[in-house]
């Protein structure tokens, strides 16, 4: 070997550095020793002389090792960055060379990543983002429990005397009370507007742990009956109506005819006590502390567990107080207790499982998309084998080649995520605009660092999902063989094909699960929509008419009926095209109810729990006719049922069946509380058909209908129900005009057709079905594209084989059937795995299904059949290409 340097060797470990330096210096010392030895010095002596002559070897070694280690560290770092920069540049160049592949892969990944981002964005805002209150985990909702005829006790609102007793007697909680959100009419220069308003006492803001952004909280002295007319406005309302003017304090708003002084502005995003819908204005809770109202439950009570206490202590504390109240007030408090729920759980508890199911479904879509991307990448890897072989021959390590492939995959998933983010943005905005109010906290969607971190994580996971197998395969491929056979027909190709087949199988299994879920929800919606609700909803318009009952305009219920409702109804009925019109305080299919216990006169009850229980409604003449609810016995309510006439009530046929199974109901009397001169019994004058009150899927309960002429406070919030001959929406303007003719300050809001009201009652299921259905559709398209790609690739690869078969006399149909069967077989295996998987997983939906079981064989068979059909079509399209194969050309093909 000639003297001189050979191939550079780079030490990579610290121990190598020290050994190298030592070797280098040892060479010098040895060479010096050689020189002395040549002059006749014995070897041992020569070594000693050389060592002395060389000088301080220890210091020199340490200095060199130090310098080298620093240098290597630096080189390693810059080499890594260098490689990455080079791989990114190379990846971008390669991707631009095959724009079709790149575009299809990016779109595939966008369809996979987009749903994931959209659902996470919703899930983050609804579930993960902390409530906008400090130490929110200490907040608890305190509700009264009451006995229900069957099953576990109900959870209900709190009466004011009970709230005051709890607040004064407990030592574990700071309590606050609020009224449920209602509406108020704002009158100003720009016309009447309906505002969402809630009453809160002065403890609410301290309990939440917040302060007004501007101005002050309500004072305790303002939260009493006949207190001053002051309000706090929301941040959004302040910006919308007052352009965020700080001089808003002490200005006035005219709400329900009364001027209210603005004393504060709430911080942004506060919707308390509403779950999700915005509140515009808060007013002080001004309720008389009247001990006789202990049985009147209408407050929402929120507590903050005191420092050093736990929710368990607080629950025990309140239960103790409730037990004492039950003894003290056996009438109104009989069998009533108290229950605590964490505020966060109260807000989102029902939504959490649905969002998790959707997240899982989006994950399936991502898996299916990643399978397609991996399949595309593998097909391309076949064409790139020569490139890889050249790289390997040039000395690139397997790890470097794999890294290069992974960087390319990373670029694809980052681009896919970017496109997916745009899709997700549209989807989320759409969902919020359509049904934001049905999601708790759903009207305030904020994308924060969690969403950004999630997108980053999704990109990495996606890259690994679809990129790792192609990358490892590229790193492993046999360079020499690929160069020799030009990248065709190598064993790697066959392995790749079987892996792609496995991907198709997985895609079909996952798609089946999603389609089965969507199918079950679709059958649920069909069942809901075809359920007989007990009324006819076509051609019916509804609207809400909150009137300022108690204001100078309408001081008493009698005034509002005589001066507003009766002339208004007469005016509406006079409009050409209007057939019937009536009023009810709560439209059917509303989750909220109004109900209570009562007695049948002449019967005795051992306890409250044995008393009959029913929904209470107030209706005007014309209501039943407008919804075509039949009056089965007796008569309808009439204009002659007034405060001074005999008190009357109608009952529905469910109530009639429960109360009077073997006798006539009409003519019997009901009592509400102790009967006396001021509380006479009420006579049943009619029986009407039953309607679905709360939800379509809940069978009708017993229901009592009182006439408007004999009703009280509820007359402040009635809904108008109008049956028309033609299109209900087209009548809106004429009806509003008729209303304003009677009272020009009367706002009208919540204008919906009765069909819309039905739709709203199933909006949560529609959202669920809409999202799951969209995911299933994406899955179906992706699975179709996946099987098409694999079969098309296989047809291209097997052109020669087909040529031989055709030349040997196989007929075209036979060959095509073979190709179609290749795809069909994969789909069948996928379905065989997917059906049991769907059977196991669809159980998570059972809580929202109606009219169909989670294991519905018809749904499963239908979606399996659909997928089988799709697989045959997707395989047949490439199979048709076999027709164009010319046996001679095909056999020459390499």
């Amino acid at each position, binding site marked *: *070997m*000639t*003297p*001189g*340097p*050979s*191939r*550079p*060797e780079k030490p990579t470990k610290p121990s190598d550095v020290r050994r*190298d*330096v030592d*070797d*280098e*210096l040892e*060479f*010098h010392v*040895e*060479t*010096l020793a*050689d020189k002395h030895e040549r002059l006749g010095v014995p070897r041992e002596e020569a070594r000693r002389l050389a060592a002395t*002559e*060389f*000088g*301080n*070897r220890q*210091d*020199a070694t340490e*200095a*060199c090792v130090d*310098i*080298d280690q*620093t*240098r290597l560290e630096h080189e390693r770092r810059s080499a890594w960055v260098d490689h990455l920069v080079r791989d990114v540049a190379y990846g971008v160049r390669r991707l631009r060379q095959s724009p079709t592949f790149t575009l299809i892969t990016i779109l595939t990944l966008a369809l996979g990543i987009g749903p994931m981002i959209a659902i996470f964005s919703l899930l983050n805002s609804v579930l993960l983002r902390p409530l906008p209150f400090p130490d929110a985990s200490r907040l608890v909702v305190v509700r009264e429990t009451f006995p229900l005829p069957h099953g576990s006790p109900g959870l209900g609102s709190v009466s004011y005397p009970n709230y005051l007793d709890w607040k004064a007697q407990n030592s574990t909680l700071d309590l606050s009370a609020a009224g449920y959100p209602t509406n108020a009419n704002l009158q100003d220069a720009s016309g009447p507007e309906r505002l969402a308003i809630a009453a809160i006492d002065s403890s609410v803001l301290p309990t939440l742990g917040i302060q007004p952004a501007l101005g002050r909280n309500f004072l305790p002295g303002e939260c009493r009956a006949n207190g001053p007319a002051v309000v706090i406005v929301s941040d959004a309302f302040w910006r919308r109506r007052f352009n965020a003017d700080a001089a808003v304090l002490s200005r006035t708003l005219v709400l329900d005819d009364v001027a209210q002084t603005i004393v504060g502005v709430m911080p942004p995003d506060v919707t308390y006590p509403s779950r999700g819908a915005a509140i515009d204005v808060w007013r002080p809770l001004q309720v008389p502390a009247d001990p006789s109202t202990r049985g009147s439950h209408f407050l929402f009570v929120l507590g903050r567990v005191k420092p050093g206490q736990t929710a368990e202590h607080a629950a025990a504390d309140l239960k103790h107080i409730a037990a004492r109240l039950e003894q003290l007030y056996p009438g109104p408090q009989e069998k009533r207790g108290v229950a605590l729920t964490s505020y966060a759980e109260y807000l989102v508890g029902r939504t959490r499982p649905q969002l998790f199911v959707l997240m899982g479904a989006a994950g399936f879509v991502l898996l299916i998309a990643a399978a397609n991307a991996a399949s595309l990448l593998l097909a391309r890897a076949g064409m790139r084998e020569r490139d890889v072989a050249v790289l390997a021959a040039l000395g690139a390590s397997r790890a470097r080649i794999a890294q290069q492939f992974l960087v390319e995959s990373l670029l694809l998933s980052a681009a896919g995520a970017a496109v997916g983010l745009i899709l997700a943005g549209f989807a989320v905005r759409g969902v919020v605009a359509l049904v934001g109010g049905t999601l708790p906290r759903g009207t305030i969607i904020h994308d924060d660092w969690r969403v950004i971190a999630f997108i980053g994580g999704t990109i990495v996971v996606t890259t690994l999902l679809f990129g790792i197998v192609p990358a490892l395969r590229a790193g492993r491929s046999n360079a020499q063989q690929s160069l020799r056979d030009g990248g065709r027909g190598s064993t790697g190709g066959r392995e790749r094909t079987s892996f792609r087949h496995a991907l198709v199988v997985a895609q079909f299994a996952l798609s089946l699960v999603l389609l089965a879920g969507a199918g079950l929800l679709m059958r649920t919606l069909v069942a809901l929509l075809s359920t007989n609700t007990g009324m006819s909803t076509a051609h019916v318009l509804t609207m809400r008419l909150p009137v300022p009952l108690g204001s100078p305009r309408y001081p008493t219920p009698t005034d509002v009926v005589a001066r507003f409702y009766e002339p208004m109804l007469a005016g509406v009925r006079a409009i050409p095209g209007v057939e019937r019109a009536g009023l009810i305080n709560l439209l059917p299919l509303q989750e909220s109810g109004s109900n209570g216990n009562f007695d049948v006169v002449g019967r005795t009850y051992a306890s409250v729990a044995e008393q009959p229980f029913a929904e209470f409604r107030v209706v005007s003449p014309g209501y039943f006719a407008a919804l075509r609810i039949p009056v089965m016995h007796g008569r309808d309510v009439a204009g002659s049922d007034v405060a001074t006439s005999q008190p009357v009530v109608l009952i529905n046929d469910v109530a009639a069946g429960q109360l009077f199974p073997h006798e006539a109901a009409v003519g019997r009397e009901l009592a509400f509380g102790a009967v006396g001169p001021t509380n006479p019994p009420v006579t049943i004058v009619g029986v009407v058909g039953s309607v679905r009150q709360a939800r379509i899927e809940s069978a009708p309960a017993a229901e009592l209908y009182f006439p408007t002429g004999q009703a009280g406070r509820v007359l402040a919030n009635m809904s108008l129900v109008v049956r028309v001959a033609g299109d209900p929406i087209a009548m809106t303007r004429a009806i509003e005009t008729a209303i304003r003719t009677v009272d020009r300050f009367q706002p009208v809001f919540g204008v919906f057709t009765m069909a819309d009201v039905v739709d709203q009652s199933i909006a949560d299921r529609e959202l669920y079905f809409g999202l799951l259905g969209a995911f299933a559709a994406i899955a179906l398209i992706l699975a179709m594209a996946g099987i098409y790609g694999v079969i098309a690739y296989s047809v291209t690869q097997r052109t020669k084989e087909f040529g031989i078969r055709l030349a040997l006399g196989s007929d075209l149909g036979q060959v095509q059937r073979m190709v179609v069967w290749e795809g069909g077989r994969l789909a069948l295996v996928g379905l065989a795995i997917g059906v049991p998987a769907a059977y196991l997983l669809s159980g998570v939906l059972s809580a929202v299904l109606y009219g169909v079981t989670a294991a519905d064989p018809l749904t499963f068979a239908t979606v399996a059949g659909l997928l089988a059909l799709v697989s045959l079509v997707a395989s047949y399209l490439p199979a048709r290409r076999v027709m164009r194969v010319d046996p001679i050309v095909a056999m020459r093909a390499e």
Partner: protein
Amino acid sequence: MPPTDVDVRQGTLDLLVLKALSRGSMHGYDILEWLRRATADQLRLEDAALYPALHRMEARGLITAAWGVSANNRRARFYRLTPDGQKALKEEAASWRQYAALVAKVLSATHRS
């Protein structure tokens, strides 16, 4: 002036090494031998001190190193100039010549009043 031994000043050693390597690839022992011959053995430098200088110059990218086989058939580390090293040699040499000429001029100047 009789020849005396000269200490290698800090910073000067780099220039001498660059000059030595401008002839081609050499290991540390050869570099020292060449420097001693070139200075008629008047250079006073401890052998061990050469190596940290070589490694520092390698880290600065002026020279590169590779393992090879020496004339006495031992494994030795050979150094070679990089393009940066060649440039540095040219610049440093020019600046030294200029500096030396300047100092020489000052020292040979006669005092006039």
